[in-house]
């Protein structure tokens, strides 16, 4: 097994651990393997001498338990009768509120992605305009209108140059919008999971 595969496996097995702590542990193991390789072991030997992943995970969890750092499993509480009655009676209210929240979030996403789409439309239009003005430039050259030729050549170069900047800028904006959408969706999904756990 290579060092990278080992680290990925270990990372997966320790997925319940807080990220900062997990990364610290992983870098500790990375260093241990690198030091063994430096001493003359092959990568495979170095990984093998650190131990089996399952044993390592068992050790880590045992260490955590003895130091009281373990994450307690969430206890499922049963919903009381009056809570159910309240939920049913309040349904006209909370269903409407939930639907409103859904519409608000949806419209937020739609407007965000509309901006992204319009930015792309402008970006795509730039090379088209560049090619168009280049065509006009050539045509006016044949007609002998040199002032117009220069103006068109300038516009063409300007559009082409602007396209390069716009392309990278819009790509950055798209990435940002995607990150925002993903994080928001994750947040919503996560909050629902937590609600289910508390039931």
């Amino acid at each position, binding site marked *: 097994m290579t060092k990278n595969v080992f680290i990925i496996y270990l990372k997966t097995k320790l997925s319940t651990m807080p990220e900062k702590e997990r990364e610290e542990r992983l870098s*500790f193991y990375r*260093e241990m393997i*690198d*030091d063994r390789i430096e001493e003359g072991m092959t990568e495979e030997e170095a990984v093998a001498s650190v131990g089996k992943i399952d044993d*390592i995970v068992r*050790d*880590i969890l045992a*260490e955590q338990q003895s130091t009281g750092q373990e994450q307690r499993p969430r206890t499922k509480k049963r919903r009381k009768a009056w809570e159910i009655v309240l939920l049913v009676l309040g349904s006209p209210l909370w269903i409407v509120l939930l639907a409103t929240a859904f519409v608000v979030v949806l419209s937020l996403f739609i407007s965000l992605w509309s901006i992204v789409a319009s930015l792309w439309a402008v970006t795509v239009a730039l090379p088209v305009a560049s090619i168009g003005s280049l065509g006009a430039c050539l045509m006016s050259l044949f007609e002998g209108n040199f002032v117009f030729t220069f103006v068109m050549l300038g516009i063409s170069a300007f559009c082409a140059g602007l396209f390069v900047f716009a392309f990278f800028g819009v790509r950055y904006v798209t990435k940002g919008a995607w990150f925002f959408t993903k994080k928001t969706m994750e947040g919503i999904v996560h909050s629902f999971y937590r609600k289910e756990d508390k039931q």
Partner: protein
Amino acid sequence: MDIQMKKGLLDVCVLSTIKNSDSYGYEMLKNMKPYIEMSESTLYTILKRLELSGMLTVYTMEHGGRLRKYYHITKAGLGRIEDFQEEWREIMDIYRYVMREEETK
């Protein structure tokens, strides 16, 4: 062995490996190996505990094109080793007393 006692002993063991000079994880394991076999996860937990209690400090230094963590003992850490030596004398006295009782049986 009692867990708390074992923890205390391992702490002192790790501290004594960096008593004279700073060291890094793998070197510490190698130095301790003739006396005590310790897994990486145990060492990590001990180092973390000692760091949090101010017995040692951690710093990162470049080594062979990568970063390596080094551990440095503090005054509190050195004090812990001295306390251990004192405590151990008392324990040895008790041990000798217990063994004498065993032998007379």
